[in-house]
């Protein structure tokens, strides 16, 4: 069972989930400041029917084609969420909740049909629900590596543009930065990260890899750049450690392990983080109270000695 860890294929898988974690950490930070963390969850669930339909049309499991199917279905989901809130009186969170569950329900229904059909249950499509990094072959790994590296590059090169777009989109427009263009690029990198991640992490939990690293990073820094690096670091470590742990047992799903590792980083950050972490805040509060108490006592003593009350 440990032999899998030494195989060169597995090392590639580890590398790809690490890079996936880095990309998810970075894109998740964009989503965090766009106040759209939940959107990533909706889009991930919306990807499932696309994967199954692509498989049905193609008849085989080619990750690249499945990813394209996932991306199309995810984008349709994104479009519907936009459309519902602009054309009806339904608000964004309700629209996301609807799309998330309807698309996921459709995906599970299609998956059941595929699994009942001849040879379908060998398709390995089940791994798209909770993620199965070990089921990836070399071509899958390369597809994932290339796409995630492109995402990382886009976020990194446009660092300054992302910053102003997220902080003050109106002002960015005044400077001539197209907010429509940025919004399209944002959706593209978000959907790309989600769909390349669903085989390794699964549609249910990929959103956690987008959300958790950025909130963890918030507890350590007050600089957008440092937050980006930290979020990427937390994401990358969660990816590699989670995948490693899940490979210890045969057939263990990868997604849950990655998410639990990411969540551990979050708990550590929440308690020990230097920016408003629970422990630091508590210590600062106590120190200030002590200081004030000793001052009042000192004042009271001087007044006492003068016989004044």
């Amino acid at each position: 069972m440990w032999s899998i860890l030494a195989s060169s294929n597995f090392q590639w898988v580890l590398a790809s989930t690490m890079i996936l974690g880095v990309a998810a950490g970075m894109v998740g930070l964009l989503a965090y400041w766009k106040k759209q963390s939940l959107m990533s969850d909706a889009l991930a669930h919306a990807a499932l029917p696309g994967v199954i339909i692509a498989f049905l049309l193609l008849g085989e499991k080619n990750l690249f084609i499945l990813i394209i199917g996932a991306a199309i279905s995810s984008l349709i989901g994104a479009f519907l969420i936009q459309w519902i809130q602009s054309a009806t009186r339904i608000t964004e969170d309700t629209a996301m909740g609807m799309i998330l569950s309807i698309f996921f329900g459709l995906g599970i229904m299609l998956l059941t049909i595929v699994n009942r059909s001849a040879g379908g249950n060998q398709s390995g499509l089940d791994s798209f629900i909770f993620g199965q990094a070990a089921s990836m072959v070399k071509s899958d790994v390369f597809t994932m590596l290339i796409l995630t590296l492109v995402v990382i590059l886009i976020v990194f090169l446009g660092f300054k543009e992302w910053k102003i777009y997220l902080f003050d989109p109106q002002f960015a427009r005044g400077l001539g930065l197209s907010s429509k263009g940025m919004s399209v690029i944002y959706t593209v990198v978000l959907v790309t990260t989600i769909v390349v991640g669903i085989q390794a992490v699964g549609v249910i939990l990929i959103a956690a890899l987008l959300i958790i690293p950025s909130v963890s990073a918030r507890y350590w820094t007050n600089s957008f750049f440092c937050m980006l690096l930290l979020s990427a670091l937390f994401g990358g470590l969660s990816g590699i450690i989670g995948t490693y742990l899940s490979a210890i047992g045969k057939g263990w799903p990868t997604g849950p392990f990655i998410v639990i590792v990411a969540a551990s980083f979050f708990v550590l950050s929440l308690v020990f983080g230097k920016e408003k972490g629970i422990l630091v805040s508590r210590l600062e509060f106590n120190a200030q109270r002590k200081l004030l108490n000793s001052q009042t006592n000192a004042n009271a003593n001087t007044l006492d000695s003068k016989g004044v009350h």
Partner: protein
Amino acid sequence: MSKFVLEVENLSASYRKNIVLEDVNFRVKQGSLTGIVGPNGAGKSTLIQTLLQLHPSLTGKVEFFNRPFNKSKQSIGYVPQRGSVDWDFPTNALDVVVMGLYGKIGWLKLPSRAHKRLAYEVLEKMDMVKYADRQISQLSGGQKQRVFLARALVQDAEFYFMDEPLVGVDAATEKAIMEILKELKTNGKTVMVVHHDLQTVEDYFDHVLFLNKTVIEHGKTSSVFTTENISRTYGGKMKWAMEEGSHVVDTR
């Protein structure tokens, strides 16, 4: 004779079903300092946003410096309302001011030391140097406003729009901001400010634009800032008395 740097003809705009601006016409002279006044919901912010194409217009023509907006973008600076951004964003005061230079720095390029020095100088002018490294969430309301103003100043624009820069700031900040506005005017820049406090209009602005869905009156403060125009803009319910040089508002 100074020339017109902004000409607006038959501008209108709406929010969903409600028309908020209708048949807006006015011209602004170079070097003027104009206060835009009007009741809540009169479309003051919408007017600025429509002029800057941040909000779609239904009809009308807008020309800055005799050119369409898209060709004069670089010479226009905008100071939005303070509440329009999330001040919890992880960045410091200097960084926000550097953002004003992003257009000049060029897309995908990083700011150089010279850009940072320039931003630093403007912060100095706003008396904000000691807060340059401070996290923006820890700035007071007045300091945030100064940072926003510094970000616009560093753009070195010819025409500035400011949306309620004096709301919720202390007296010292108000004075500092007004000094900057007067200096801009002296340097031949044109400034339009959405303003709420009718008591200070005469002291602060040489031109005033009364707005309530359309332009009620526009001109030199000395000639158009009259009780009649104020009650035409704010409606009949508002009674004005000018006693001992101060305005008393009765909002029954």
